[in-house]
């Protein structure tokens, strides 16, 4: 314990280590935030969610804060729901039981780019006779554009952007552009100002009701943006941190400790045991690591536990065992080990109390540097399509973005966000690792 405190004090003398530790702390805070804000089951439900879970969020939306750096601001999502705001709605009940329901949804459009998609969701109550609605848009300059008349069911979706008749009426232009244009301007400019979406409904039964929700999807959304399935990227970005850290840490701990112990035991007893271990390592070293993982992922399971297990098993008999063996061979011949043998120390005592402590100083920096390499491995596997099918991870985001041509379409945020986090993780551990290296290998000091 004292040694750990002393080592820590030594470590914080290095500015790079302090920065690295701060970055690791930040990643841990990120992980905790993820778990607190989106508990595991929620995160999984949302990540694997259906259209219904994400109907209110736009596709391919950039992070909202990017507007801060833009001269021409991108549009934000506009969402208005008459069931949430009763004052949008006026109901006029007639004596014959029918009623006229007027819904006015006012919104301000003042960005330089158009909305992406316009949708109206209707909800109604009736027993037999379908209510009837007429949808129109009042523009700031006083025009009133009729959009559509339709009879609605219990739930009805009217996609303004895909209304072919409307497109025809607007002269072949897509509605989200044509409706918000200033007809006087040339070349066409967006017309900024207060718009009102007016819905006039008629119900034919007593107790019938209509509610409307208008969504004009924007180009920016949230602090992380969204992907092709309208999912908020904040969830996988947050959840990627604990998954990556845990994977990296467990893979590093697993491979290092097990391969160190195997190297110590096989070197100590030598003979056929050492021979067999070395041959296994040599065979394992020529086996292609990635194809084996791909095979396991394809034919058996892509669950992160299975992949982690495979990585550890393949990693144990990796090249580090040779490094450890070289160190142990040297230690094994030291006079103090022979002395220990002479005074009757048992094999276990010699291996675990005399040999292992000698390599630990060399091991700790290596071990810290190994963590990000396994984080990258996990991300690479996800990019190759071997990511855990359930968990939201950084690699999965990159995989999705790649599959949807993010770079080709200019959705750089989609690739950059997880990449920056991956680089951040790598940098954090590298800075701590190099500082530790200088502490434990004093020959590197002051050079």
């Amino acid at each position, binding site marked *: 314990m004292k040694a750990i405190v002393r080592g820590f004090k030594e470590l914080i003398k290095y500015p790079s280590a302090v920065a690295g530790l701060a970055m690791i702390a930040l990643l841990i805070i990120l992980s905790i935030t993820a778990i607190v804000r989106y508990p595991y089951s929620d995160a999984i439900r949302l990540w694997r969610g259906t259209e219904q879970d994400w109907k209110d969020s736009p596709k391919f939306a950039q992070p909202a804060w990017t507007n801060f750096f833009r001269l021409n601001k991108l549009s934000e999502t506009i969402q208005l729901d008459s069931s949430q705001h009763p004052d949008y709605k006026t109901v006029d009940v007639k004596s014959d039981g029918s009623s006229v329901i007027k819904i006015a949804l006012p919104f301000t459009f003042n960005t330089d780019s158009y909305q992406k998609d316009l949708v109206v969701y209707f909800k109604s109550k009736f027993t037999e006779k379908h209510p009837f609605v007429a949808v129109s848009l009042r523009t700031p300059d006083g025009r009133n554009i009729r959009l559509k008349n339709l009879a609605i069911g219990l739930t009805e979706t009217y996609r303004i952007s895909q209304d072919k008749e409307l497109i025809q009426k607007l002269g072949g232009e897509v509605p989200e552009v044509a409706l918000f244009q200033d007809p006087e301007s040339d070349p066409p400019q967006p017309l900024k100002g207060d718009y009102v979406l007016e819905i006039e409904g008629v119900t034919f039964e007593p107790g019938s009701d209509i509610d409307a929700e208008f969504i004009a999807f924007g180009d920016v959304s949230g602090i992380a943006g969204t992907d092709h399935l309208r999912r908020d990227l904040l969830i996988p970005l947050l959840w990627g941190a604990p998954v990556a850290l845990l994977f990296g840490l467990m893979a590093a701990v697993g491979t290092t400790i097990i391969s160190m112990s195997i190297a110590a035991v096989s070197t100590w007893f030598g003979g056929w045991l050492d021979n067999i271990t070395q041959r296994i390592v040599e065979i394992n070293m020529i086996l292609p690591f990635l194809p084996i993982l791909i095979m396991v992922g394809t034919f058996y399971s892509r669950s992160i536990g299975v992949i982690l297990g495979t990585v550890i098993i393949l990693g144990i008999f990796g090249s580090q065992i040779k490094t450890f063996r070289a160190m142990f061979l040297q230690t094994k011949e*030291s*006079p103090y080990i022979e002395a220990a043998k*002479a*005074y009757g120390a048992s094999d276990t*005592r010699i291996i675990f109390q*005399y040999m292992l*402590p000698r390599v630990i100083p060399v091991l700790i920096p290596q071990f810290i540097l190994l963590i990000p390499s396994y984080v990258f491995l996990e991300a690479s596997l996800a990019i190759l399509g071997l990511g855990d099918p359930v968990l939201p991870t950084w690699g999965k985001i990159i995989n999705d973005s790649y599959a949807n041509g993010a770079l080709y379409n200019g959705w750089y945020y989609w690739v950059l966000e997880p990449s920056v986090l991956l680089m951040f993780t790598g940098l954090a551990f590298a800075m701590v690792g190099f500082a530790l290296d200088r502490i434990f290998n004093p020959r590197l000091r002051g050079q």
Partner: protein
Amino acid sequence: MAKNDTPLLKIEDLVLHFKVGKTGVVRAVDGVNFNLGFKEAVVVLGESGCGKTSLAKAILRLLPKNIERYSGKVILNGVDTMALDDEAYRKEVRWVKMSMVPQAAMNSLNPVMKVGEQVAEPVMVHGGASKEDALKQARKMFAHVGVPDQFIDRYAFELSGGMRQRSAIAMALVTAPDLIILDEPTSALDVLTQANIFNVLKRIKNELETSFILITHDIATSSELADKVAVMYAGQIVEVSDADRFFHEPLHPYAKKLMASVPKLRATVEPDFIVGQPPSLLDPPKGCRFAERCSKCFDLCKDEPPVEDRDGRLVKCWLYV
């Protein structure tokens, strides 16, 4: 102790051969016999490479992997230790009945352990004692060998060569064995420190009633401690004698030459040397192994000489038959 008639250690025909390459056999220890009584110190003398360290290792069964032949009897306190299996040997003999200060003992301390803990280590390994008890025992031993108390919490690299050597000796003593084998305990130390170490050994011998096997090149200083001298040449013991008579007049021609090689203070006699080198133990000559370097060599020397008893002194030479 009234067991002086039965020796503490009885070695009979001890053989330790190493394999070298595919067919080579190094006869490092080739049929060694000698006895050692209680509270007795025997000095094993001989040139480099004549098998002294191998003899020590053969006695304590600290064997390398390339053993060709390991046989004979090592009877310690009436128990034939060669009959014990490795695990029993480790538990019952090493450091319980005999311990060793290895060659280059200064390096035999664990660099990542405090010296005190290192010295206490054998007690914990064998006695199963608690750490406190073991450290208490270690502290006592430090007092015996003259290491000041404050050194107990230091690491080996913080100690001088002499202090490390003393610590190694303390480690050999800590379990109070009957026999301690010291393999060149004073090599690589300066003369003053050597004298100090020998004084420590002398005091220990008187205070702790321990027997010693002292392997050394240093004939002059060892003469102070020795009760008995065994001269080793080419894997065999050529002379075993009580120290008084040996240092007065050695019998074997090799021993004579060895004694003559010791420089004497203010004497006009030049130190003598022995022509040639000891024979290779890979293929030792038949007959007397010293024959080709011996000035008194005659016909009989081409046969193996018997061991003759001359008034309690054992000598392996045709001259005394």
